[in-house]
């Protein structure tokens, strides 16, 4: 049993760090780093080109009716209903959170799946899923205990949580970013990861120089092994018939500093890899 004295001992044991303050040099260093990689708005064009205002209002009204109808019949919001309002990652993941299991992204996390020890808590989550992988990276998604949506880029310590899937926005493509820029692999590749609606079957990362990196077989999520040195421009989401569904520009640096070019090795001729849904 925890006595008052024990509690006081534990509390006081941590007391010294309660007053710890960062020194001015560290603050200045952080501010200079942030200044170099400060995010600019990522959306460079309108997500919807619906033209006149009234169709949008009509669409919103229809959406409200669909949601109201669903609520009246005590049925969780289905993805079909959300899609009626325009396909968006927010809508798709809301559908999954609402119980639309058949349309969940990726594949369920298998009991036999080996996870880093610090990520074992994923198994406590509701419906943990593997939604993409590339190289040594796997992108996981799970529903938190409070019903929120969570993503984890395995092995990097990078994760994002959303109280509601609606926070993902109304676009068919959404790049997730929680600080993975620090995790360049031995080849200098940086995992660029995101989610997309089901109609997106492939994604393409374009560069200022050289060929794009294209990944097919997308099932709700993707991980692209980007090459910062080639100047990534944008990620383009494509449907099965090759039509552009959406695009998102990369207008922030993927790494703080570009790595020194590594000397060529015998095995350096392999293609850049990206990934797709599992």
């Amino acid at each position: 049993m925890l006595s008052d004295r024990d509690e006081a001992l534990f509390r006081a044991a941590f007391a010294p760090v309660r007053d710890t303050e960062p020194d001015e040099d560290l603050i200045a260093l952080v501010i200079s780093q942030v200044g170099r990689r400060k995010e600019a708005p990522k959306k460079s064009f309108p997500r919807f080109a619906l033209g006149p205002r009234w169709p949008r209002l009509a669409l919103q009204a229809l959406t409200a009716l669909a949601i109201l109808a669903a609520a009246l019949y005590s049925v969780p919001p289905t993805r079909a209903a959300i899609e009626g309002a325009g396909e968006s990652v927010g809508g798709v993941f809301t559908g999954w959170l609402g119980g639309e299991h058949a349309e969940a992204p990726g594949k369920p996390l298998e009991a036999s799946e080996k996870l880093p020890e610090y990520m074992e808590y994923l198994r406590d989550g509701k419906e943990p899923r593997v939604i993409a992988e590339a190289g040594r990276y796997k992108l996981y998604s799970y529903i938190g205990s409070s019903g929120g949506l969570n993503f984890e880029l395995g092995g990097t310590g990078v994760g994002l949580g959303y109280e509601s899937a609606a926070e993902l926005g109304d676009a068919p493509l959404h790049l997730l970013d929680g600080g993975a820029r620090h995790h360049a692999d031995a080849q200098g590749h940086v995992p660029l990861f995101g989610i997309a609606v089901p109609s997106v079957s492939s994604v393409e990362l374009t560069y200022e120089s050289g060929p794009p990196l294209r990944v097919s077989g997308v099932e709700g999520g993707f991980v692209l092994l980007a090459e910062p040195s080639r100047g990534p421009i944008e990620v383009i989401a494509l449907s099965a018939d090759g039509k552009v569904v959406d695009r998102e520009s990369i207008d922030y640096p993927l790494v703080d500093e570009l790595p020194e070019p590594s000397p060529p090795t015998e095995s350096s001729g392999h293609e850049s890899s990206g990934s797709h849904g599992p």
Partner: protein
Amino acid sequence: MDAERRESREIVADQVRRFRAGDGDAADPLARRALRMSLRTASALMRSREDAADVAQEVAVDVLGSLGKLRDPEAFDAWVHRITVRHAMRRLKKGRSTRKVEAPLALLDEDGLRAAIPDGDIDSRLAARQALVGAVSRLPAKQRVALALRYVHDLPDAEIAAALGCRVGTVHALLSRGRRSLREDRQLVEVTLDLKEEG
């Protein structure tokens, strides 16, 4: 206290909005806040001041660099805790520390030790410190993180759960196991029993 916290949260939220709107002056207070919070947590977990500072720096840069993703500006502190936990856990799990120190930083402070164990002479306090050091450093990383968030930041279970990305029930279990392990630590029990008898 609640009113103070509320006011503080609103001030920070305003700074977040200004930062996202391009106001460079907002970077300084946000960087200080993120650094302060993450440094305190990391100092309770890492085995050197340098490691703690490294973690805090990574966290602060990531937090400010990703503020565009934070939908609720009032959730700034929760955002910092969550990113801190991820960086700290990664570092703890990967054992990236190359600077070997015998104790978590939090337990090295003499004044803190005096506050923790006010009774007893200096030898008793030193013995108690050694016992505390050993007991805490033997705890699993996740238990240490949960205890640090509770005792450094006074976070309630729900906020610890949000930072750790687990259920509230899991937090209860982590705190309970951590406290029990400390309580049952043989060396710590012996020392604190001595102190109780002296007191």
